[in-house]
């Protein structure tokens, strides 16, 4: 769709500190040509700083960045933002209030190419045909975002960066806009990196997801791999509901509060086992107690206290069949489970964003 070249992004050993506080600590990242990468992390992990460093708005202290095979950051090298051919959609969209929609979209085009046709074409692309003469302030939030997107892609950048693209939208609008953006990115075939703190957004849009914590990329993988094989307990909890149960490993399996579970990697001694709520099953009768029932429409989440006092989350894809106070039995019915040695678990600080009862 875009005539310009689409470029891969390669980042190695990127460091950045603000004053004394380290923000990026040796970032390693690779985005293939035409791929969409989600940078997922809790607030303050440095993901926006990384994005701004890619755009050239922050200066890295060390490390290299190349975009489309061309080095833009390196020892003694810092290509200014205007010469990086990078499009950035700002979190607050940063539309120029003194220009109308056409003025905004045409802003980055060379004077000769700044024609009404070219601008209208970019607006058509985002579904805003005929809006060229409107003032940005008269548009709705969703429309403003699309103007910002049209403005960023009009000069045909080799990569497109998006900073929290949905955070300024009503929750009711988000899913809709997300699908539109997904369509558009796929159609453009542009290399895109977007920042989000929302696991669902990252999974839905990203060909790959890079999870960031405290200035480092903890894990980069396609969403399904990431979900199935999180590198650390922290990642496991951050990207979805997780029961992290203390267990005693012996050979190829481990003894947990919900019974014997087969492990991916064998071992022996104390360990922590990751059991996703949707892999647990409930049946009536037994010595575990249902503490809470949370009905979501498409499924139901049960909080169940086992006989040794551990609370586990169990997801069932139907209307509630067990009620608070019911006695039940919990068993594991999933693939071989991931386990973490206790050192790995204590090395990570659990996120405040997504605590589960099971981890307490």
């Amino acid at each position, binding site marked *: 769709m875009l005539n310009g070249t689409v470029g891969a992004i390669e980042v190695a050993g990127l460091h950045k500190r603000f004053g004394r506080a380290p923000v990026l600590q040796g970032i390693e990242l690779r985005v293939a040509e035409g791929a969409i990468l989600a940078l997922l992390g809790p607030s303050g992990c440095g993901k926006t700083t990384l994005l701004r460093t890619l755009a050239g708005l922050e200066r890295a202290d060390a490390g290299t960045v190349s975009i489309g095979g061309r080095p833009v950051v390196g020892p003694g090298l810092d290509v200014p*933002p*205007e010469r990086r051919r990078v499009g950035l959609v700002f979190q607050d969209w940063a539309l120029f*209030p003194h220009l109308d929609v056409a003025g905004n979209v045409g802003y980055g085009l060379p004077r000769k190419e700044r024609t009404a046709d070219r601008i209208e074409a970019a607006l058509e692309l985002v579904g805003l045909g005929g809006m060229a003469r409107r003032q940005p302030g008269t548009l*709705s939030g*969703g429309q403003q975002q699309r103007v910002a997107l049209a403005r960023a892609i009009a000069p045909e950048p080799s990569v497109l960066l998006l900073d929290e693209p949905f955070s300024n939208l009503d929750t009711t609008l988000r899913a809709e806009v997300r699908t539109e953006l997904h369509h*558009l990115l796929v159609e453009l075939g542009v290399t895109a990196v977007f920042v989000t703190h929302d696991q669902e957004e990252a999974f839905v849009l990203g060909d790959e997801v890079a999870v960031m914590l405290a200035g480092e990329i903890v894990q980069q993988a396609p969403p399904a791999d990431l979900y199935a094989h999180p590198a650390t307990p922290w990642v496991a909890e951050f990207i979805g509901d997780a029961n992290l149960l203390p267990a005693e490993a012996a050979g190829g399996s481990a003894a947990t509060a919900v019974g014997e579970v087969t492990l991916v990697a064998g071992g022996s001694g104390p360990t922590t086992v990751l059991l996703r709520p949707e892999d647990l099953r409930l049946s009536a009768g037994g010595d575990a107690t249902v503490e809470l029932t949370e009905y979501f429409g498409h499924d139901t989440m049960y909080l169940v206290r086992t006989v040794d006092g551990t609370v586990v989350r169990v997801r069932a894809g139907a209307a509630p069949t067990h009620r608070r106070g019911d006695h039940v039995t919990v068993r594991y019915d999933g693939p071989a489970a991931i386990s973490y040695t206790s050192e790995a678990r204590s090395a990570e600080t659990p996120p405040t964003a997504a605590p589960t009862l099971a981890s307490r």
Partner: protein
Amino acid sequence: MQIVTADRPVDRPDPARRARRRPTPGLALGGLAVAAVALLPLAYLLVRSSEVGLDRALDIATSERVRGLLWRTGLLAVSVTVAAAAIAVPVAWITVRTDLPLRRFWVVATALPLAIPTYVGGYAFVGALGPRGILQGWLEPLGVESLPSLYGFWGAWLVLTLFTYPYVLLTVRSAVRGLDPSLEEASRTLGQGRWTTLRRVVLPQLRPSILAGSLLVGLYTLSDFGAVSLLRFDSFTRAIFVQYRASLDRSTAAVLGLVLVAVTLVVLGGEFAARRSGSYHRLHASGARAAPVIALGRWRWPTFGLLCALLTVALIIPLAVVGTWFLRGLDAGEPIRLTATLAGNSLRAATLGALASVAAAWPVALLAVRRGGRLGRLVEGACWVGHSLPGVVVALALVFFGARVAPSIYQTHWLLTLAYVVLFLPQALGAIRSSLLQISPSLEEASRLLGRGSLATTFRVVIPLARPGLLAGGSLVFLTCMKELPATLLLAPTGYPTLATQVWSSTSEAFFARAALPALALVLLSSIPMAILVLREPDR
């Protein structure tokens, strides 16, 4: 690809719209009375001019003399405005955004020339470079008999520019602080360099504030009386004053006054149109991120040097000149006691002006904020009309009014206070209005539900909460009254000289030493609140 989205316009609640009720009769009457007072000078000027007959009035208004005055005054206003903006816009940007050495100091220092009334600036200028001035005194032993004349256009231009550019500086600086840095970053990622970004994004964003500040300077220049008359530049205000003083034909002065009012209205109208066509508001509240500090690099110290030069010309030299004359005056035995009397007179007149303005602004602010509607807008608009009139014109109109209609208050403090209210009420209004806007109407409603009547609620809830605004508005008017010259000159009771009138009259007669102490006292009294005002600005 088809994109369909349910779009809803972003709507923002308007806090002022709440609790809008019909005004009580007392409040409406009070507001209307204040509006009538504010419009009185203009109305009386019309009455007085009409006495000469329409033909004669048109003859005067289109005479060669008036055309010359218009041309000269207009040229001065435009040149001063352009020069003030040319100084203020770069200074505003540099003092907020860059790594200028001693930046915090410069934020305050560059605004301080505003504390020097233009006639004091004119006095310093004449006292240094004029005949019998300091420089002449130094050169005389060397055989230089006379210096090239500094009187006229260029002297007036220089003095007015140096002491009014802070008006633009202060408005533009707050706009620079409000700039959203992500707009500049967006421009950079769209392939535009630093200078292009400055031209295509930053300057257009600052345009409304540059216009607003320039308007203040332009209107000030049109209405300035002290500096132009000390520098003998034949401008409109000086012509009106001379016409009034020198001849018995006061109707001609009234017609001249009306012409000046017309010019003022044209300028205001132009600014209004420009503001409407260029109206744009911020799309989002600015993020928490502060704008990055721009490194000046090798321009750091040259910029510092330029600011030092500006400060020297606009603040240090004027103060040094006045200081020198003060010391000479001490040697020659100028009486200091007299200055104490003058200061007392100034303080008394300014206190009356401030109290009366606050009292008059209160019902207007209440009407405008709490009751809104057409009446509120009407009354508020009337108050601004008075404020936009040049001081000479208001004074002249009140002289006519006092002499003919109300001889009992003519030549008393009442008339002078009335002039101050007409001229400066909007300054109090602005401060009171914004503090009233911050008081939630539900507080008043709570008080009423707890059994307090309207009056008790006003005294026990509204006034205590609005106190910061009342104090700020009152002190602002007080300060302006202290510095005011033309109305004080024309309306103060006989034998009631103030600091301002003393500086003016002594300087006009080249008694420079006699003007020194009053001038110093004025600058000192004005600069303390000025510094506090500037220091309260946010940093970046």
